[in-house]
């Protein structure tokens, strides 16, 4: 059993990283007194390795790498129930969000979620709008599951719910530049 955590003082790097994540999330983990209300209301906690309260605890203890590797941050559905209910005003959902981005930067990532996000943003960057059919196809192909949800594709078409071609907006170049400038300005800061 490896339940106990051997604590050593957080390193400067860990402190810096935590401060960065907290700043981006606009919240402080030290406010948390571990009541567990976030976990109690979390609709996805059943599937998490570390439920929300424990993720916060890892951060409080300076164990940010372990938190960034937790599957939990990719299981979080961003429904914001935790943040809405926290009696200490910790914005847990925003922290999860900031940690996902941090993990993404470090390449620690749930591949399927990342593939979906990439496909989604690729669409917007090139057309200005999301193209649902193209998005699902691209996602299925890049994740090696070409027949996923196939039984839903045809009924979607017969109901007139799938466009054959992506909609392109006039300001495509403008949108492309937004992507480029956001990346250059280091949006994750």
């Amino acid at each position, binding site marked *: 059993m490896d339940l106990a955590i051997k604590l050593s003082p957080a390193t400067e790097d860990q402190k810096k990283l935590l401060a960065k994540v907290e700043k981006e999330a606009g919240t402080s983990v030290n406010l948390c007194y571990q009541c567990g209300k976030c976990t109690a209301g979390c609709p996805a906690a059943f599937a998490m390795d570390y439920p929300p309260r424990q993720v916060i605890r890892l951060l409080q203890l300076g164990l940010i790498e372990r938190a960034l590797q937790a599957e939990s941050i990719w299981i979080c559905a*961003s429904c914001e129930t935790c943040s809405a209910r926290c009696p200490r005003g910790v914005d847990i959902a925003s922290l999860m969000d900031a940690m996902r981005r941090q993990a993404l930067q470090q390449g620690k990532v749930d591949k399927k979620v990342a593939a979906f996000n990439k496909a989604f943003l690729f669409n917007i960057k090139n057309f200005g709008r999301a193209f649902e059919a193209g998005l699902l196809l691209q996602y299925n192909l890049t994740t090696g599951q070409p027949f996923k949800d196939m039984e839903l594709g045809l009924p979607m078409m017969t109901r007139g719910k799938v466009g054959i071609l992506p909609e392109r907006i006039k300001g495509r170049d403008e949108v492309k530049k937004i992507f480029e400038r956001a990346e250059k300005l280091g949006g994750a800061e």
Partner: protein
Amino acid sequence: MKFAYYPGCSADGSGIEYGMSMERTAKILGFELQELEDWNCCGATSGHNTDKLLSLALPARNLAIAEKTGMSMMTPCAACYSRHRHAEHAIQHDPEMKKKIEQVLDMELQGTSETVSILDILAHKIGADEIAAKVKNPLTTMKAACYYGCLLVRPVEHTGFDDAEDPQTMDVVMKALGADAIDWSHKTECCGAAMVTSRPDVGNPMLYRVLKDAKESGAECIVTACPLCMLNLDMRQAGIEKKFKEKFNMPIYYVTELLAIACGDEQKTVGIEKHFVEAGKYLQTVKVRAAEAKVAAEKAAAEAAAKAKEKAEAVARAKAAGKTADKPKEEAAAEPDQKKIEAFKTALTKNPDKMVAKLVDDPARAEILATTLDEKRIAKLAQLMAADMEKAKKAADAFVTAELKKQGDCQD
């Protein structure tokens, strides 16, 4: 009333019925929707999962266009609504971030935009009374679970038009349409729409629980104001039924579809036939039940009116008769009481403990009376109870006192 309209990427794709019924809703209620010029996708969950600045800048481009129109911007999709409110909040409250967003957009922002949800417009800007006034075919007897999901009501500091735990705006609208808005516990639970594609092992149980709670709470349909919730609850319901071996047959509707239909639209006009879970038959059932309820209500009203008339006539007759003789007046008044007296007699005989408790507060004294009731006392009490409860209580009390005295005498 006029709004800039941000339909979002699903309004002519997976959420086509939402787009159709939104246009009808605007027309019926008399507000105007002017599509935002050359709008772009808000980036949704993928945006804020990837890059914060990008996730704020994408909706901010739309807000910049919207603020130039001088109108509030309405978006039907809960995710679009949430992302635009997030960006608005950052622009208005975080000067440092505002500057960064302006750099990324390469334009200046006034920070005057206001993104509103359709529920906010329906419940607050138009109001239940005005909606009810437009209803032609009320959805009487419809048992609807109003489903708000996550992004319309949370986070409160970004949304704030309704209660985050027990929101009411959709309930108010559904009641104005004549439906029953049932109470249930998953009103604001997340349906897992963001998870079902990439992590079905997480998303499916979330979806299952929402459907199950609605059904167990007595809902016959679920109403939503979010195209992602719709897609999830409707398109994936058959898969969930198979996976969890449980039938739901739960039709899902957009609140705008039901509004248009209650105000006289045909099902086809708002795209009911495009749903995955058959949704037309339930609307027919509601129509039939509503018609029956209407007939029953009319019949009851007519009967009540006839009764009132009869009574008034009897009183008038009694009054007229009372001038000549007192006797018929008494008869007229005593007549309906006979039934009551009989009912009290039966109750006192069959259920003495319960009935006596109504007359005597003290349990010990009540017991004495209950065990000593005879035909004579029952007749007397029943008569008094039918006429005047206070008198009956006094009589009951007297019986107990007499009984106690009798017992005391014996002991002496």
